[in-house]
């Protein structure tokens, strides 16, 4: 469990504003990716985000392109999880594959505000913030193996070595 602060955004936060197309085909290092996170949505984010912070958003977080730097840049910025009402399909897969927890919780998304303190208990399935505790549904079995291995590449590597 680690504590962080909330950065709150709205519905349909798309991959272009999380990580702009002009950087997508340049192969940047993690810290360079982190410096461009949310550039076109919230220019104050990259300079002020701290390890352990949590993104809270509305519906359809990560819609748009399949670019997985939109998940990688947040992880590189130290974001411990994204909490949203729902996630776009490809973003959900990418985040899991890169080891960025994506938690679906309507109530937490409604209640939490920018600057709130937040503490997430991944094993217990709870988000504690502003004196309240929210429960999030467990991730599907199919993805737990990938997260436990530390992401899809590590999972695949283990599988290849095992066979």
């Amino acid at each position: 469990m680690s504590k962080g602060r909330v950065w709150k955004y709205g519905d349909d936060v798309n991959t272009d504003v999380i990580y702009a197309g002009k950087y997508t085909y340049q192969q940047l290092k993690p810290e360079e990716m982190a410096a461009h996170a949310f550039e076109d949505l919230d220019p104050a984010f990259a300079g002020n985000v701290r390890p352990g912070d949590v993104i809270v958003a509305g519906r359809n977080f990560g819609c748009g392109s399949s670019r997985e730097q939109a998940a990688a840049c947040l992880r590189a910025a130290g974001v411990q999880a994204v909490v949203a009402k729902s996630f776009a399909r490809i973003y959900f897969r990418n985040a899991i594959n890169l080891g960025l927890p994506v938690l679906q919780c309507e109530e937490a998304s409604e209640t939490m505000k920018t600057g709130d303190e937040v503490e997430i208990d991944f094993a217990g399935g709870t988000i504690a913030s502003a004196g309240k505790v929210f429960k999030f549904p467990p991730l599907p079995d199919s993805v737990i193996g990938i997260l436990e291995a530390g992401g899809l590449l590590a999972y695949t590597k283990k599988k290849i070595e095992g066979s």
Partner: protein
Amino acid sequence: MGRTFSEKVLSLKAGRAVRAGEVITVAPDYYLSHDNSSAIIGEFKKLGLKSVVAPRKIVIVLDHIVPAADEKYAQNHKTIREFVIEQKIPNFFDIHAGVCHQVFSEASFALPGKVIMGSDSHTTTYGAFGAFSAGIGRTEMASLWATDEIWLRVPETLRIEMTGKPGPGVYAKDVILKIIGDNGADRANYEAVEFAGPEAGNFSLASRMVLTNMAAEMGAKNGYFEPDDQTIAWLKARARDAYEIVKSDPDATYEAVLKYDLSRIEPQIACPHSVDNVKPVSAVVGRPFHQALIGTCTNGRLEDLEIAAKILKGKKIHPRVRALVLPASREVYLEALKKGLIEIFVAANCVILNPGCGPCLGAHEGLLAPGEVVVGTSNRNFKGRMGGRDSEIYLASPATVAASALEGKITDPRTCL
């Protein structure tokens, strides 16, 4: 109880009868990647394998930043070309070929009943030919190259039944924009979208590709049109492999059925900064803008260029706008040349770009300065996508874009027909 197309295709692949909601592991038939292959190669190499499992399933098309705009992009392309030779990947299309989704379809990897994964969100396009095709990320593509398997959740299906002939000046783009505007950018998240009803078959294959391409903008995992005589005629000359037509059962279960009377739809436009911010063109007529864009994987096919050329023929675009035209592929480009369309565009003062993604994704050629506005036929209008954070993107049909380029302001194409 019957099954949907997606349930049936994935049942065939899984070797057992599956229903929506189940998670299965499958070996896809083809996997597509583009300029991001260079990043995929980087991930693949971390796995410590000497070679990819199934080189014949890999299809790579360079299209995103072609020709390379700078040294970094040139290095990406070089890395990909070397890997293609080293791994003996037979299906590689270099910078001359065009946008991956058009090239993949022309080269007929998009076959009925095939399961296709692409590391591009508009991989949904191949449903126009009755394939099951969905987008994934780079890491998953690297894993596919290494293992030839991927987990998939069998999607629920949203069925869209279309009746009524579209009126003059109304095209597939207007229909899909209307559907997205009415239902929202996440209406079909995780779902298959099946385009059906009596009008579905009246759309050309090129128009079907517009609908399945933009199903991605409703969050869809895949799109689908039932193959028909048009599909079979197209495949007769091209099919590279045996295929099996898979159709939804008449008593299949759908998440919902939406009904659209196309005769009641007028030309539509998606306004900044989301694809579901859709209005009738008539509501924004007169809005001045700076650049027109005709092309991309959504609307860069021959029929699109024909519609635009018909409007621009013998005329010049407004002196205060510039217009970019990109044929979706080399094949489309050659056909457009033979039909004299390119001459019409050049005479009208349009700039012809080489086939590829062009400025759509915001990496090169034809980007916008802060405060500028583009009216284009592409598929996304997210803030800052095509240049400065303060620029604006409107999305419409080739007819609306061509008519607007002539007038120098957003124009209802029905006034130019």
